[in-house]
Structures are given as structure tokens and as C-alpha cells.
């Protein structure tokens, strides 16, 4: 049986240019057999959601290291709801303090992966979530 490939959008919301993590995750997911689209830097929430819809992705991975996650992640979740694509699994990563993770999960972010995460854990998480 030919299983459909999981489609993932790796996105950099906000203005920070730290893309080492995003690029490593993108490559690891691709090596694990997923279809990966990487947005590049400085994406607005609107651009990210639009790309996610156009590319018909199962998962959005948001990478941010500037601290702007408290503003930008909720905005992205809102837009997903407005566009009725809440079924897209949203995960995040970057420099995100523990207390913020709790708040982000409350608004529907499925998981937040902080520095030191093994890419295999991210792969496993996505594979289990998207079945």
C-alpha cells in the first residue's frame, strides 16, 4: 500500500535570522521521508497560513528565537481557525521559556521543542500525530 507522504511547512515567523535549527529540522524531516517546504526568514502570520493552505500541509513547524512567539503564535492559530484549517498540526521550537509553553499549548500548539531536542523525537511526534 502506498502511504501518502506527510507534508510539513517549516516556517520562520518574526524578524529573527536564526535559521540553523529550522534548516536542520527541515532536512531531518525530509530525510525521514516527509515532504518539506521551508519558507525562509521574516514571514508574517498571514503569509505562513496562506502558504500552509496552498501547499496543503499536515503540519506547520514554527521556529522562533526572538521572544516574539507570545504575539505571533496566537495570531497564527487565530488565522488557521478563521480559514477553517484547524486540523493542521502546529508545533514550535526555539528559545521559548517553560512558562510560555504552557500558555501556547492552551491555544492549541501541539508541542514545543526547546534547545537540545533530538530530531528523531520531532519525527516520531509528527508521525504519531498525523496518521
Amino acid at each position, binding site marked *: 500500500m502506498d502511504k501518502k507522504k506527510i507534508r510539513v511547512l517549516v516556517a520562520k515567523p518574526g*524578524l529573527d535570522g536564526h535559521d540553523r535549527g529550522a534548516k536542520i529540522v527541515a532536512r531531518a524531516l525530509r530525510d525521514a521521508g516527509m515532504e518539506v517546504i*521551508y519558507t525562509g526568514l*521574516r514571514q508574517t502570520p498571514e503569509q505562513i497560513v496562506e502558504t500552509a493552505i496552498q501547499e496543503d500541509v499536515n503540519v506547520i513547524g514554527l521556529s522562533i528565537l*526572538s521572544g516574539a512567539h507570545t504575539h505571533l503564535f496566537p495570531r497564527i492559530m487565530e488565522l488557521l481557525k478563521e480559514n477553517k484549517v484547524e486540523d493542521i498540526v502546529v508545533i514550535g521550537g526555539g528559545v521559548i521559556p517553560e512558562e510560555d509553553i504552557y500558555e501556547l499549548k492552551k491555544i492549541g500548539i501541539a508541542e514545543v521543542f526547546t534547545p537540545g531536542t533530538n530530531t528523531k523525537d520531532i519525527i516520531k511526534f509528527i508521525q504519531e500525530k498525523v496518521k
Partner: protein
Amino acid sequence: MFNAEEINKIKKSRLKWESNTLKNTLPFFSERKDKFVTGSGKEVARLYTPEDLEEFDYNTQLNFPGQYPYTRGVQSTMYRGRLWTMRQYAGFGTAEESNKRYKYLLEQGQTGLSVAFDLPTQIGYDSDHSMALGEVGKVGVAIDSLKDMEMLFDGIPLDKVSTSMTINAPANILLAMYIVVAEKQGVSLNKLKGTIQNDILKEYIARGTYIFPPAPSMRLITNIFEFCFREMPLWNTISISGYHIREAGATAVQEVAFTLADGIAYVEAAINIGLKVDDFAPRLSFFFNAHNDLLEEVAKFRAARRLWAKIMKERFGAKNEKSLMLRFHTQTAGCTLTAQQSDNNIIRVAMQALAAVLGGTQSLHTNSRDEAMALPSEGSVRIALRTQQVLAYETGVTETIDPLAGSYYIEFLTNDIEKQALKYIEKIDKLGGASRAIEQGFMQQEIQNSAYRYQEEIEEGKRIVVGVNKFRIKEKPPKGLLKVDPEVEHHQLMKIKKLKESRDNHKVKATLNALEKAAQTEANLMPFILDCVRSYATLGEICTILRGIFGEYKESIKL
């Protein structure tokens, strides 16, 4: 250092040692790994001996401190004369808050300032721009106009401190603001000491805060070279940075190679607009990373110094000794900090700082233990600064110059890093120089490959990160992390509104128009930008004009 006969003798003894002592030991005490590598993944031999330095010549390869090729340091007395400048990169929230942090750091014995700007400032957006949402004051201080800059340095005499500003795409504007603040304090420009990062090429390669395409960006950079040559003789006009290249995942060799390749591009750009190499080269400065592998890092700094001296002398025919000297700032490697057992970062930072000092740095920033999680708290910054002070006053490593010189391993590594970096530079030359290589994504791709390899090694357990893939414990989330006041954004918006109501808007318009006209000629834009700043035009307004004329850079993405 050794003649052929001596080397031959050593070789004989080595073979004997290998076939007797070593051969008898290995079956009982096998080595921990099949292959030993440096932090950059370069294979390390069991032992280094004079055999590895066969062609070694003290006078040409090392010489004395303050003498070509400056392998042993750029000053003849090094830290016996003056210690490095302890310069902690800092800034967050509003100008008022950052001003307080600077005064605190100066009281604690810090010897220079280093300004961190928030991302909207670095990318040329005012705090009220839609792209700035959520970013205002987060990773640095928000500066929208001269008003903020006046507040930032309030009560800090600019003729007494040296200031480093991490600003690139809009460097000319922030430098202009600094100049006008100095004028208002009554400090003449030829007394101003400090550094502006002003290095756009590494933004395209690794750091990401670019605005304009390469050609107009290079023009803005050389405008600063030219202006400062005439007006600010003590100012470092650029800080050619390998730091972020390394943070993005480059190896030590790649860090040296790509940084010096960028340096070559700046020197060529300045010569192309008619500057003489010895007029601007003495004010070029550098910025490197201090990563985990202590000895490799020491060798890296020494290799970079030697290679740059040769490039300036042989390739550009520089005559002034100061043009040949690679002076550099160092920051410990942020990418090595772990969120797990974060106090361990204090130890990592201490080792990395030691590497910088043994490598002869001119100034140093030590990271704080909590930076894998947030901006550093005041207490963490103090430990980071104390780490430098312990190194400077207690360890004794400052008392003699370049103390590791002559170590077979250090000299071998220094030679090797220089050689490998030169190969890369030749490759970049073939691609048409740094700007062209960046457009083709060459450096970016090389760095990504190194970063991916490094991550794989960690995940496969080949590379141990203490507390992350070994020696793990269950721990509670850390307390006392710094949180930027969410009111900052609101506060900045109010300030801009008030400013736009109170300034002479006709004057603002006139200066912006003049800049717009000048940008379409070949003129040096510094005087025009200074006029805009004096009229309290905002950073965003000035950048909007320049965006209109120059356009914006689009990154080339290859995974």
C-alpha cells in the same frame, strides 16, 4: 625550529616507542574511540612531535608580538600592558531600561559598552510598523529616532567610554545618531572610540538582518569607511564577523575562511571607490566565536591573524603596520549553551573565554548561563563578567604573551587551519569573490552541511553534550528568567506619536528629500543621513527612502 637531522632522530625514537611501549600497552588499554576529532570534526593524532612541524621557521611563521605576521599577537606587550576590553553585549526594552543596565555594567567594572538593538531597529522598521509586532524591545533596545539615542546614552560621557554597536543594514543611521548625541554632549568626533558592526555580507550568509541588496549595501559600508577616515580616526568602521557564521554551524576553518573572504570583499570595494588601502585598513576590525574545543580555538585565532596579515601585505600591498593587524572581539559560543542543567554553561563559557584570551583577543563578551532560555538576568550577567575578571586577575594566563606558542599541537593546528582556510578563499575567488559566492549560496550550503553533520553526531552519541545526551537529570524549570516588559511596545508607540507631533515636520521632509536625491547619485550619504537624524526623522522614515531607491534583498534558499 628543528633541523633535518634532529627530526630524523625523533622519528627513529617515535618508531621505537610505537613498536615497543605503545604496542605493549594498546592490547591491554585500548583507546576510548576509533577516531578522535576536534570540535570541528578534524581528525586528531595521538601525539604531535617536531615531525609535524618539519618546515617550521620561528622568524617567518611566528616572529615576535606586534611584528609581522602577528601570529603571537598584535601588541608588543599584550595583556602585560593592557587587559582586553570586557564588553558585555546588552540592551533590551526601552532606551531608559538599557541605559540603566549600561550604568550597572560600568559600575561592576565593565570597560566598554556593547549595544544590542531590537530586530525592528536592525531591519529598519519603526516600532509602529506592522512587521515590528511582538518584536519591539525583545532582543535589544528599540531605537526609533535620535530621541531614543539621547536617552540611551544619558549620563554616559561618550569621550570616556568606547561603544560597540551591533548594527548592520542601517549602520549609517545609528552611527549618525551616535555622532549627533556626541555633538550634543560637546564631544568632538575625533575623540569617539568604538566599533560599528557594519558587516552586511555575513548577514546574507548567516545572521539574517539584511535590508538592501549587496551593491547599495557595499556602498553604504564604504561611505562609513570614507567618512570615518576623515572625521573619526579612532573609530573601528567595521567588525568583520565570523561569530554568526560559526553560530550557524560552520567549522573553525570555515569561520576563518568566510570571514576573511568577506574582509577581502570590503577591501576591494573600498579600493574600487578610490580609497587607499592604508587610509582605511587600520580601522578594520574583526569578531570571532570562541567555541568548545579549547586548543583548536586558540590555534584558530592565531591562524586568522597570520593569514590576514599575509593577505593585506601580499594581495593588497598594504604598507602601514596597522593595516596588517587583525584586531578582534570575541564572544563565547551561544550555540553551545544548553537549556538542560543551565548552570553547566558557566563552565563552558569559562573554557571558551580562556581560549579567547590564550588566542590574544582585544575584547571579549562572555555569555550568561541562562541564554538558551531567555535574555540574561542581571545576576547571570554578573557571573559572566566575573568569569572574565577571574581569568584576568587570578589564573596567570595574562602574565606572558602567547603562552601556548611552541606547542607541537598548537603550531600544527595553526598551520593547518591557515592552510585549509586559504584553500576556501581560493575557491571563493574562483566563484567571483564573497558577494558572488553568497548569491550562489555557496557559503550558506557549506555551513548547513557542517551544522547537519554536527547535529547527527550529537544524535548518534558520537559527540557528547553534557546534560543533553549524557549525564541527564530530571530538573525543574529554571526560575528568575528575564522577561521584557510587554508595555515596551506601547511605550515606544506613544513616544513616536509624540515625536511626530512635536518636531519640525517641514524640516524632516526637506532632509529626507535631500537624502532621496543624493541616494540616486554617487555621493557619500553620511552627511545627508546626519541631517535627517538631526531633524529627528525616524529610522523607519530614513530606511523607507533608501528602500525605495535601493530595493530589498531576497535570500536564496537551498536546503
